[in-house]
């Protein structure tokens, strides 16, 4: 793991989740109109799309982080210093 540059690690979490969040936002709001969905809230469609996108992104980030976390070599759990 340690030979992977930090930029690549950050990107591996932020970027795939960004893409899937974009797709999820398009699909979700094609099916559901925020004006109908959030009729009780005072929020513009653009605001709903934006918040929706960031919630999807957040979910993706959590998923990617969990994937990266579980991909760490198992031995590093026992001897964290050796893989530094």
């Amino acid at each position, binding site marked *: 793991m340690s030979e992977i540059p*930090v930029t690549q690690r950050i*990107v591996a979490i932020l970027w795939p989740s960004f893409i899937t969040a974009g797709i999820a936002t398009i699909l979700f709001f094609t099916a559901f*109109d925020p004006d109908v969905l959030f009729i009780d809230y005072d929020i513009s469609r653009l605001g709903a799309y934006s918040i929706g996108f960031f919630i999807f992104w957040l979910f993706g980030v959590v998923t990617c982080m969990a994937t990266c976390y579980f991909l760490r070599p198992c031995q590093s759990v026992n001897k964290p210093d050796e893989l530094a």
Partner: protein
Amino acid sequence: MTASSQKPTSDVADDIEQSLYAKREKIYPRQVHGVFAALRTTGVMALLGMYYIIPWLQWDGHQMVLFDLPARKFYILGMVFWPQDFFYLALLLIVAALSLFFFTALAGRLWCGFACPQTVWTEAFLWIERKIEGTRPQQIKLDKAPWTFNKYKIKLTKHFIWIVFSLFTGLTFVGYFSPIQQLAASSINFSLGPWELFWIIFYGFATYGNAGWLREQVCMYMCPYARFQSAMIDSDTLIISYDAARGDTCGPRKKGVDPKEKGLGDCIDCTICVQVCPTGIDIRDGLQYQCIGCAACIDACDDVMDKMDYAKGLIRYTTENMLHGKKEHFLRPRIFVYAVILVAITAGTFYAIFTRMPLALDVIRDRNTLFRETNEGLIENVYILKVMNMDQKQHDYSLSVSGIEGATMYMDRVDIEVEPGEVIEVPVRVQVDPDALVRRSSEVLFNLIATDVDNLYVTEDARFIGPVPSR
């Protein structure tokens, strides 16, 4: 990362910062002139020009290209698309993917080197950088120099211009989704909506970060295409390659000296091909996934070959087969298959778009009562019809019902007149003689036909529920 997690936080931050800088050395691509550089500049100018100009163009009183998210309507030229037309977007994405396959199989990463937004904006940022900081050696010298007032001035100017350019890019981007003339007006008098402002800054920041700072790292770490391109490339694909048989052994020599006497090939080891490379690779090491196919090394090397009075093309577009002295097969089955599928789907997509019926009908059965028996002994079902006029003009429609013998339809309104881009709800009662029903649930068809133009109609089916037939 594992070990550093046990250190105090400030150390961790230091480590991350250090490894960030230690891992990546900044690449200073040397400016290059030549055929491919001219092609790329043309591509950059054309694409950036289109990007910045298109949102300002008008068509029939509205913005020519506008993905009006708040109104959920998408204007492209004279056409209006709705979320219901999502299907066409999917088709266009398939066409885009197939084009990528086709061009990659034919000539490698043409997209990356000449058309990818990452390349296009990086070129623009590099141009600004060269105007302010100077040539490659001047840039390297500046970065090594201590921080003087002059260095601060140069760096601040560069970043200021980059940021202004990025924010304008962000404004243009948001202008594809929200009318750009109002957007520009409200950004001048500081009355932008919070979400518009947010996305202008967000997109501007992404442009500044990707084209100013990350650059080739986007291609190396973020681009999926770079990783799977090999699946589309074969031994007959045009790739940019160094001719090792001709060039090796590399070594310096004086002009006019016969390289064979010194045991050298045509490569003079000037490393200019490395200096011009925007991803910092040495093309002489063979085909690498970092190579974006920009052909800067071809231009650079041809220049050097000219100066040495050697033949051009030590680095050139070639195929693996040609490099090994075999015959080239540009027109191979793979190309034909991709081309046929691409043409067929493209034609189908455009046919579907141009013959699209700009009218939609949704039928919703009243869920409160299954059916009602009238005084005359007929069975009645109630529906709500949503008529959506997706055309640019107002239309009158007439509605009829079919599918069940003797079905009659009643509605409260006389005519169905829908403004362009509007949706109206039409409550409808359908009455049927129970003798005409052979099942509990029968299919009933609603036919909506425009009365003011030809060939504008839609038929939608629904269920008609009645009692269990006595027969």
